[in-house]
Each structure stands twice: as C-alpha cells, then as structure tokens.
C-alpha cells in the first residue's frame, strides 16, 4: 500500500525581550542558576504577573508577517500541572483566544512551492530547568529560564514529508530572525520544535492517529525523527496493528523515538482564564505602528531579486537566508547596480565561504559592502583579474591598507596591463622568441595558441588583460 505522511509542527520561539514576560528579571542566557529569578519567577506567596508589552509587540510583528489575524482581546489562561521547575504549579499561556490566529508561510522543496497554513500563535511563559546531574539522589532546580517569553507557533497538518517539515521549520527560523523577534539560537533552546506525525493510505481523507514527538532541537533531528516515526507507524499498520496516540521523545543517540507518556497519562490541564491578567487589548493604532516598523519580508525580497535583479530563484533563496546577508548583498549592489550577478556570486561565494571558515556572522564581516563594491568595480572595469581579486580580498579581510581595494592593488602592483600598445610590445617580444610555435599555429596546430598566451601572461607577470591578449595575439598571428 502507498502511505502518505501527515505532519504538523508546533514551534516554541523564545522572544528576544530583555526582561521576562511577566516580571522584570533578565532573560540573558547562561547565568549562574537562580540568579535571574526574581520574586515573581520563583512564585513567592502574593506575587502577581505584569505583562511585558515588548513580548506582545513581537507577537504582533509575527502575526503581520504571516498575514494572520491579530485577536483583540486575547486571553491569558492558566495551564495547571505540578512539576518542580514550574514554580506556580501552572504555566501562564493562551488557550481559547490566542493573540495570533491563522496566517501562512510559503515553503520551497526542490522546484515545488507550497503554502503551509498556520493555526495560531500564542504567548506563554517558559518553565525553569531541572538539573539531574551533579546532585546525588536529588534534583536541582534552576529558575533562570522560568518566565522567559515564548511564542508558540502551531501549523496545520499541511506537510507531507520530512523534507517539507524541515523546509517549513527553516522558513520559520529565517522569518523570526528576519523580523527580529527571536535570535533563533537552537543550541540555547531559543527555537524548539515538536512534530505531530501520522500516516494514512494515500488518497484517504481521514487523518491517522498522531503521535507528538518532542525534543527536536535541530533541523537534522527533526528530519530523522519524522522519518523514523513514519516508518514505525507504517510498519505497525502493515502488520495489522494500530497506532496509540501518545507523546514520544526523540533520542538522537539511538536515532529513534520512544514513548514519553500515553494518552491515558495525559494531564488534565484545567485551563481557565488567569484572573491576575486582564484580557489583552490590542488597538488598531498599535498594530499600525508595528506594521510601519516591519522590514521588507523574505518572500517579497526573494521575488524582487528574481524579477528586478534577474537572479535565479535558487540564488535569491541563498541570499535571503538571513536579513543581514540580504542587506549586505543589497548594500553592495547599491554601489554597483550594473553588476548584480557579480555581487551575488561574491556574496554567496567568497564572502560566505570565508565567514563559514572563520565561524563568524556577516554582521562581524571585516569587509564592508562598500569595500567589497570597490573591489568588484576593479574587476568589472578590468583593472584586475578575477584571480588577483581573490588575493586582494584576502588582504582586505586582514585589514591591510584600511581594507581599501585600490590601495592594496597599487601596493601589490596587481593592476592589469590594459594598454593596447604595451600589450602589443609584449606580444611582439614573445612571438620573436618563440618562432617555432608561431609556425606550428600557422600550420594548423591550434594548441600552440594557448601556449603562446601562457608565455605572454608569464612575461607580463600575470598582469596583462587576458581578453586583450587574446584579441591582439589573434590579429598578429593572422598578419
């Protein structure tokens, strides 16, 4: 039987506010345990939550970016359960009326484009962390993370393969960083995925029983976990079994998913509106103010790069991987509007390669877009060859001559010889010294031509403009 895999994702994005969603404590990562947990975060008796409007603003930004409805009012609700790293015994979340409803994200897998619909995105607070190592026979609790603002983004079950799920997660990852609401750091848990996976016979309308896989903190794990889980479910069904709805945990070391808790063990969270927080009202004016702040979105930029710049869809996708990269590219193009493709190739090639090698972000790139444009100008006007340009770029990266391409070219004497008479003189000397090859060429041995070009380039110490050398040499040999 042909099976169809159905996937929906729930992504927890940590919002990039300085302070927590309901308290004034810092959200900075990596502090000593419990040093960033104030009275509200440790849930002392009598404390009350006060909403951080910076978190709301980021949720609005997201809603606008995916074309969703911004609900006003939306309601904060308590999700009740006991766990040592949940200080109040409930998590403040949103249940019946989330701040963002609907919307969609466009993904691309290979040549195919697809729209993934969003169900909702809601604001909530993160829990703390239980530390099981280091405490023999006991658990430590670190509440630094408790109260960190999260936007949980829930998709419809619109994905049909792990590749689509990864494309969706990556598009979302790009978007939340692009609009500046999340730093996207997956190692630090700023972007965490849970996947709902089910399978059904191809062509069937009814969805199969789903399992939720937790703890997917990289795109690779997301892909592998979905693949494993789909295989597992198909095997069970093909053996005549049935799927039990449950929550499963992905174990990256063994590349498998296993039961975390079954439906019977599922908590009754007893959601109810949090009486400590008023319904969240978001005025039209507020939404308009946020809309103005919103940058041009990745999809719009992608389209512009293809339509206005004439780049391929693939190149455009690479250039919009982050907003910083796209901005870098565009700032380079601004100085050199006639050479879009050259700019694109250099940003995707030399610049990206070097950044990867050094392990730094484009924001820390020592070569500015203006400096890069200066270098690329010298390629396009024939001052230097593409090959020497790489040497110049290397020197610019090292900060030589304040990163000025022209100064480096001059200092290194890399300027091309583009003067016709100078080149003619060089060629005449070479032809005089290699009369045998001239004879060979004239008798039909085409290879001799390349050999002569090599000799000329060598005589010029690589500086002769290769195009001009070709043209003039051909002319001379025909004389």
């Amino acid at each position, binding site marked *: 039987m042909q099976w169809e895999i159905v996937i929906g994702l729930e992504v927890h994005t940590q919002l990039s506010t300085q302070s927590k969603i309901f308290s004034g404590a810092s959200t900075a990562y990596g502090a000593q345990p419990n040093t960033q947990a104030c*009275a509200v975060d*440790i*849930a*002392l*008796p*009598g*404390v*009350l*939550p*006060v*909403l951080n409007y910076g978190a709301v603003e980021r949720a609005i930004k997201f809603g606008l970016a995916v074309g969703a409805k911004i609900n006003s009012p939306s309601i904060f609700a*308590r999700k*009740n359960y*006991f766990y*040592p790293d949940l*200080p*109040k*015994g*409930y998590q403040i979340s949103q249940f019946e009326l989330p701040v963002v409803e609907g919307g969609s994200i466009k993904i691309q897998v290979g040549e195919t484009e697809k729209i993934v619909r969003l169900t909702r995105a809601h604001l909530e607070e993160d829990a703390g962390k239980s530390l099981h190592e280091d405490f023999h026979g006991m*658990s430590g*609790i670190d509440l630094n993370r408790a109260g960190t603002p999260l936007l949980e983004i829930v998709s419809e079950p619109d994905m049909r393969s792990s590749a689509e799920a990864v494309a969706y997660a990556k598009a979302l990852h790009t978007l939340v960083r692009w609009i500046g609401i999340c730093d996207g750091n997956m190692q630090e848990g700023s972007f965490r995925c849970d996947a709902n996976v089910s399978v059904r016979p191809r062509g069937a309308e009814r969805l199969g029983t789903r399992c939720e896989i937790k703890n997917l903190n990289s795109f690779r794990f997301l892909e592998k976990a979905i693949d494993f889980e789909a295989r597992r479910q198909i095997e069970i069904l093909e053996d005549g079994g049935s799927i039990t709805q449950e929550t499963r945990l992905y174990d990256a070391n063994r590349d498998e998913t296993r039961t975390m808790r079954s439906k019977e063990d599922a908590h*009754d969270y*007893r*959601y*109810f509106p949090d*009486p*400590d*927080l*008023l319904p969240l009202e978001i005025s039209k004016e507020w939404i308009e103010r946020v809309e103005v702040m919103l940058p041009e979105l990745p999809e719009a930029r992608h389209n512009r790069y293809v339509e206005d710049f004439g780049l391929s869809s693939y190149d455009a996708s690479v250039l919009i991987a982050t907003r910083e990269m796209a901005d870098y590219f565009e700032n380079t193009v601004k100085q050199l509007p006639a050479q879009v493709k050259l700019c694109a190739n250099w940003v995707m090639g030399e610049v990206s390669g070097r950044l990867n090698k050094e392990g730094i972000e484009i924001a820390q790139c020592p070569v500015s877009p203006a400096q890069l444009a200066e270098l690329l100008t010298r390629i396009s006007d024939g001052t230097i060859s593409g090959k020497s340009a790489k040497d110049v770029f290397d020197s610019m990266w090292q900060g030589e001559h304040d990163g000025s391409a022209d100064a480096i070219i001059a200092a290194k004497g890399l300027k091309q010889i583009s003067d016709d008479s100078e080149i003619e003189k060089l060629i005449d000397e070479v032809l005089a010294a290699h009369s045998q090859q001239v004879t060979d060429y004239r008798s039909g041995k085409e290879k001799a031509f390349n050999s002569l070009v090599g000799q000329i380039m060598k005589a010029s110490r690589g500086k002769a403009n290769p195009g001009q050398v070709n043209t003039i040499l051909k002319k001379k040999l025909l004389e």
Partner: protein
Amino acid sequence: MLNASLKQLAAQLAERKISSLELTKAFLKRIKALNQDLNAFITLNEEMSLAQAQIADKMIASGQAYPLTGIPVAQKDIFCAKGWLTTCGSKMLSNFISPYDATVIERFNQVGAVNIGKTNMDEFAMGSSNETSYYGSVKNPWDIAAVPGGSSGGSACAVAARMAPAATATDTGGSIRQPAALCGISGIKPTYGLVSRYGMIAFASSLDQAGPMAKSAEDLAFLLNVMAGFDARDSTSLQREPEDYACDLEKPLGQLRIGLPKEYFAKGMSNDVASAVEAAIAEYRKLGATIVEISLPNTGLAIPVYYVLAPAEASSNLSRFDGVRYGYRAAQYTDLEDMYKKTRTQGFGAEVKRRILIGTYVLSHGYYDAYYLQAQKLRRLIASDFTEAFKQCDVIMGPTSPAVAFNFGEKSNDPIQMYLSDIYTSAANLAGLPGMSIPVGFGDKNRPVGLHIIGNYFREAQMLNIAHQYQQVTDWHLRAPARLPEA
C-alpha cells in the same frame, strides 16, 4: 488612649503629648495581656514594631508626619511583610519569613505607621469563623464562647478588644464585613481594584480585595487614604485619580435614597438582627434619607456561584505550595510525587483541601462548561442586578450577617451552613462593588449586629459619609466589650 480615634491619636502625637514609642508599647502591653485568651495575633515582633515607632517619632519631630504616622496598625497575616513570619494561618507557611513587603504594607511603612503584629485568620482566608486557622481560633471579645467571624477574625478581634486602633483585612466573600459585624466594629471592602493585591497571598484573585477595619467610619477613611491607589505591580489595580476618602465625611445626607432589597428581608434573617437593622434604617430616615424597595432577583445564586468560582481560582492559586521552594515540606517521602502528596496532605487543613478538591473538580475536563463557565455567566447576571438597582437608589442596605456570632463548633461540621454566613456579602465580591459593615446594636446573648452598606463602584467616600453621619448620632461604634479589662 486605647479607645481614642485615629484623629485623636494623630493630634496627641502631633502635639507631642505622647510619642509613637509610648503608644506602641501601650498597645503591645494590651496585646500581651489579652492575646492568650483571644488569640488575635499569630506573630508579634516587638523589636521591629518599636524600631518603626522610633522612625515615626523622628518623622513627627522633623515635621514630616502624615495623618497615620506613628499609629500602630495590626496587619492581617495574609500580607507579606519583609522580615516577618507570614503564615496566612497555615501550617504550609508556618516557617515562611517574607523577603518582601506587600504593597499595602509598603504604603503603611511609607507614611510611618507601625506594624504592631500579624493577626490570626482562617487558613488561606477560607472560613467564616476563624476555626480553620492552624494557629487555633480567635475568640470573640464580646463572648469567648462565640466565633469572631472570618476570615479576618484576628483583625476584627484586635480592634474590638482595643489591642490595636486599626487593622488591615481582606475580603473575598465577606471576610472583612462579616467579622466586623460579629465583633461590633466597622470595616470596608473597597471596589475591586482600588487596593493593590501585590503581596497579599491570593485566595480567589478575581474576588480578593483588601480593606481596613477600625472602630469608626472616620478611622476607615484615614486608613483607606493610605491603602488605596494604583500599583503597576498588580494588573487588576485601577488607574484613577487619588481621592481623599475623608473629605465628604461631614456632608449632610440630603436626598439620600437607601435601597432595601426585598430578597434580603424576606427570610433567613434572624429576628434580633432584623430589629437592629430596622432600627438603624429608622435612624437614617430621621437623618433625611428616603427608603426605596428594590429587588436583586439573583440573590439566591450568589453563594452557589461563589462556591464554584472561588474554589476554582483557589485550587490553582494554592498550587505553588508544593514544598519545593519554601514553606512546609513533609519530613519523609520516597519520591517527587510522594513529596507533593505528603507535603500538601500534611500542610493544608481540611477546609483548604475541601476547596482545592471542589475547585479542581469544577475546572476538570468535561465539567468546566457546566460549572465554571455557567458560574461566570451567572456572575454577570448578579452584577447586572446591582446595575439595575443603582438606577433607583444611592446605596443598598441590609444585614451583614443573617445572625449574630454563633458558638464554636456550631457550624464547623456543616460546611453549607457555614457558607451561608456570607449570603449577604458575597454578591458584592462577585460584582466587584464596595461593601461595608458598621455596628448598629446588639442581638441575642448581647452579641453585636452589623449593618451592611453596598455602594456603587468607587463610591467609598459616599459610603463612609453615610456611615459617619450615623455614627454622629449613635454610639454603637464606641462600645467596647465590658468583659475585658477597661482600655
């Protein structure tokens, strides 16, 4: 001195006839003499109280005094006070020294009032008789066989027995007004949102409201001036212009229209309470007020609605008492779940457990719509009854409690009977309206009777004026229990 009004005390302090230190010592002496019998206070901290008194004396000496500077105030043990044991009447918090001040405490500290001690209360404010306190019940100073009411029984007793000139209290379903009535003192529960709830240990967040208790309406006005005000740390706190609650006290009642809900006078009220309340209303008539019969058709729903919503919120609010971070933890347990179970089984009393169970049930999957949502709908109906009523009258009056103080043990095995003690008071909490109780005489066994006054939203100044005018022509509020040594 121990019988003096806040205004008189302030004057004596200002004229340097007495120092705050002397005043504080005098009240501490009285507390020490009576607390053994009355059990009104859970914690005294003489050192801290006297230190505050000395600060107050300096403020007075340097001309920086406020109306309450140097005046001792008893604080209900539901308010977190930095450095003070703050138990909420529970074993669960029997070792909890608060590291921070509630906003109410902070505001009293700022004006130089003296925290004279933390008063006893029903455990987590759940009770109408003070019998649920882990620290033993408070006795009614008029008759130690009688309950003082609850949950603010300690505060009511402290004021009635002249152990403190004033006290703070909280009211979720009647916890200020019912003990005020049963102890023969005055108390006001302001409009929901007027006094910050920050640092006040939550029982039912949408109903909880702090307010003062004192001998007279005039005293309440000065106390409310300190307590009321916007607080950014409480999202349900209301942002409005500060008011002087004492400014209208002397206004004549003029064309005051008093609404008497026919449902309150139909049945359920005992005769002794009825005659004292009717006499008080007759007094108001003499003062020029007109009496209007009104109807609050959903009165009968208040208790059932209250006992769905309050436990629902409480079941969640009390989840934080899990033995993990502070407070009581069972001495022995096998694993995490066992630790939770034993800690909460041992740390909470029976009434608190009952309400956690009710609350958990009404929020459960499959029952939520039938109980919690339905109760929320009815809550709006109850509130709209009042909106309609206030089209016909300025204030509503009736009995605070259906009967005078009952005896210990009388209702403690019958939760429904106990819950009905709040039959007249809980509707104001559900609607968020201000309500107060003032003493208007004595009923059976010479136990006090309270008159319940419900005002429209933010009409506290008017209510205090109405109560004050009554207290200008009567002296019930000046009576102190004769069985106690004279103050």
